[in-house]
């Protein structure tokens, strides 16, 4: 049986062999790995990009005080982005499942229509949720737009639900029973690591988080984002886009957002994301798209060598 951390290690090995950069999680709270600049910003523009990593994510509203065996307000995604998308991305994905010891011939693997949209990022893509014996284990998306701009070339994104895959592999019925690590017969479970934080953060997200100060923070982050953009600093600006989005999620968990207000706040974050994305793209262009040049050089070297 693979432990939770062995699953991550195997995925790291597999994707490292595919030439992916193993980046670290981004140190700002976020709802999904798509917010990591290594996804959201790097998928813009012509430069090639291959990266893989584990990302902790927060969905404030999904907290259940640690009482529900399938729902968490903090969970992990394993994220892979490949730009440009390779010629057979499904086969590559299936190979990664085999790396986890999943005999795909014994299981029922399906690609079920699921088009993805992230309104705060101005992002959309077409793809599937991948089912393994009926369980959704991965979101597989061909990005079409990001920061309200078309993605060219298209990036493919695989977002593995690590807890779900681990539950599938370990055949447990509660996320808290997942074995995170096992050594000399001693086990540390997912519950040992995260149960208490699920309880505390559920209380915080639903009951304690201070609404007026969250609103104030939203305003401040949005303003700071614009200040950074005015100073031509897209990367710090983008940090504040992520912060706005997380504050929005907290306000939502507190039930403080009416449907009408929702559209307005989502629209503001989307506008900031678009500006930050445009500014980032302009800064890469100013630098002469360095990775594109490196890529071109490398393939030239290959040709010369061969």
């Amino acid at each position: 049986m693979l432990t939770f951390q062995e699953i991550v290690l195997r995925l790291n090995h597999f994707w490292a062999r595919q030439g992916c950069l193993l980046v670290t999680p981004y140190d700002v709270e976020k709802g999904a790995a798509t917010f990591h600049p290594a996804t959201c910003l790097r998928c813009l523009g012509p430069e090639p990009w291959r990266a893989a990593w584990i990302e902790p994510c927060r969905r404030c509203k999904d907290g259940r005080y640690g009482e529900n065996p399938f729902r968490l307000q903090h969970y992990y995604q394993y994220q892979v982005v490949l730009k440009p998308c390779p010629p057979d991305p499904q086969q590559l994905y299936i190979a990664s499942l085999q790396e986890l010891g999943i005999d795909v011939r014994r299981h029922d693997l399906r690609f079920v229509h699921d088009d993805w949209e992230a309104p705060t990022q101005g992002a959309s893509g077409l793809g599937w949720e991948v089912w393994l014996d009926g369980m959704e284990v991965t979101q597989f998306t061909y990005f079409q737009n990001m920061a309200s701009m078309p993605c060219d070339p298209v990036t493919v994104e695989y977002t593995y639900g690590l807890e779900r895959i681990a539950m599938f592999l370990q055949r447990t019925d509660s996320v808290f029973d997942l074995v995170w690590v096992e050594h000399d017969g001693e086990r540390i479970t997912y519950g040992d690591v995260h149960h208490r934080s699920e309880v505390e953060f559920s209380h915080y997200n639903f009951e304690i988080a201070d609404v007026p100060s969250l609103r104030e923070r939203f305003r401040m982050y949005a303003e700071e984002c614009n200040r950074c953009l005015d100073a031509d600093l897209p990367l710090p600006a983008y940090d504040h886009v992520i912060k706005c989005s997380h504050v929005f999620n907290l306000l939502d968990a507190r039930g403080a957002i009416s449907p009408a207000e929702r559209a307005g706040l989502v629209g503001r974050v989307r506008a900031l994301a678009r500006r930050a994305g445009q500014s980032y793209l302009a800064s890469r262009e100013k630098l002469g798209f360095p990775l594109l040049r490196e890529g071109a050089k490398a393939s030239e070297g290959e040709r010369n060598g061969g």
Partner: protein
Amino acid sequence: MADLLLEIGVEELPAGYVPGAIAQLAERARTGLAEARLEHGAVHATATPRRLVLAVADLPEAQPPLTEEVAGPPERVAFRDGEPTRAAEGFARKLGLDVAALEVRDTPRGRYVFATRTIPGRPVRELLPELLRAWILALRFPKSMRWPQSPANETFARPVRRLLALLGAEVLPLDVFGCQAGRCTEGHPILAGRRPIALERADYQAYRSLLRQHLVIVEREERRAAIRQAIEARLAEAGGRLEHETLLEEVCDLVEIPHVCEGRFDPRYLELPEAVVEAAMTDHQRYFPVRDGEGRLTARFLFVANQPEPADVVVEGNERVLRARLEDAAFYMREDLKLLMSQREDALAGIVFHERLGTLADKARRLVWLAEHLADQMGLEGHEHEAAVGAARLAKADLTTELVAEFPQLQGVIGGEYLRRQGFPEAVAQAVAEHYRPRFAGDDLPETAAGRCVALADKIDNLVAFFAAGLEPSASADPYALRRQGLGVVRMLIEGGIGIDLDRAVAEAVKALARHGGPIGQSASDTDPSTFDAVGLHARVRRFLEERMAGYLRDLGYRYDLVDAVLGAGGADTSFGDLQRRLEALTALADREGFADLVEVVDRCWRIVRGQQGADDASPDPERFEQPEERALYEALEAVREPFVAACERGAWEEAAELYRQRLAAPVHTFFEKVFVNAPDPAVRANRLALLRAVRSLFTERFADLSRVVEGKK
């Protein structure tokens, strides 16, 4: 003669796109072949999630030659003294012909030069690649995508990775989406291992059996029949039958080789509302619920795997997923039931219904107001009346529950279940459960009178409120599904035989909105009444409902002009209750002799009075008549008025129409022969117009506006 076989190898198509893609591909091929003047045998299209297939039998070697006639210059320009001029030579050269081949013919415009030329047909193998390319690129999907291997302007529903294009034994040089066509297909993506499998020739049956060997049933009908048979057999064993036809269609397009498996779950989850258990299976997991002979859910389910012989782990895995879903639902229900449905007012006040229309608490107050009014109009009494008003008060409470947040499509149904479990009266629970009906075309109406009352109140309030907020549907967008709700109102009035005065109901809804309408209501009553144009609003809602009514009646097969005529009848009676009976009578009359005469009576009056000044209801003054024909018509009109109205009120529509035609046709026609309506004296003229208006409006007010009849007129 040679057969054509095309296979577009694609990553999993969305299941919902597949049937449309099959139909489009066959249609494009048929039209395209006809345009290319190609005779052909059977055209067949089919698909799996991973391939779109087109097979055309018996294509010829080449197009038949095309003979066409081209008109040239006039003879006088083309020939001088019998000799061809430069003009004639140029014309012949342009067509690649000799001058001697030109002919001169008489035409209505004079004598002209003509040439007949024959364009040789192109070889089919040369023609097909461009045709196939055009057909493929013309396929339309709800959403299409770009991917790096395909040129930017060649998009498709999902990436195309492989093409097979054979004409006979020959590979066609087809190049689209960055793929070069070959003679290879692939089997089941996992079980057959993505190896290319070569096909010798374009033989659909050979292709089909080759794929069968590689674990793909390419024929969609065959897959569907196999799934249906297996599912129906399993359901019948338990005593039930197949109820989910659209789910069957969907799962058919989720697999290449189906196998129906059975899973089980813990029977304690059957304590959840049935609709929740069912939705967890069908909507989330595409499973088929199994019911017993009494129609009760059992703790079993069927699913369709994409494998010929699924291992036990597949069943176990699916069982685990369903257990997780049901456990989630059970958790929400336990939490939800801790709070009484009647104690959710604060929560309702905290949820905005629409920014301009207040909160859900406001919505609930309007619903109570309108339900009380409608219950009175519908003549509900005692328990039924109480149930309707009680249900209106509680109808929206479930929108504050976790379970509805999880299963929004079960709003109302979950509310009804919770009310039952919390000991509220059954009549209230049922009315709440069914007050969103009819939810889609063909859905059942609410069964109980209280349910219909609340359902009507909910829909009428939505129409009035969203219209007041300026959120009427546009030609292309109807985000609040107001057309569907309007149609729901129409169906309840007609099919439910609810004889209410709709104008009064709409007026009450406007009142309720002014009192409990949130920002819009406040702006109306306190500050600026003009922002909330109650009269205009009323008229717009009325017109909108009439349009729905017209559409509904046309869909039932009634003639559109007769529908217009019946809806065009104005007057005291504003209920839709007897409308269908009037239309039925008019339709019967329209097939009979004498209908044209009837229409002519009204239409002749209308042709004169339309566009002339004067009020519709101004009565003619008998003192001002100058000719006996005026008086005769007036007297005939007054004599028929009473029996006509009485017949209408009895619902004896055909008798009423007969009376009108028999008594008024002759005097009207004599009037028009003898009387000059547009008399120089304005007072005389106005009086004559008033008489004709009165003749027309007697029929129009109560029965139908016959001046809108288009077919079968004189």
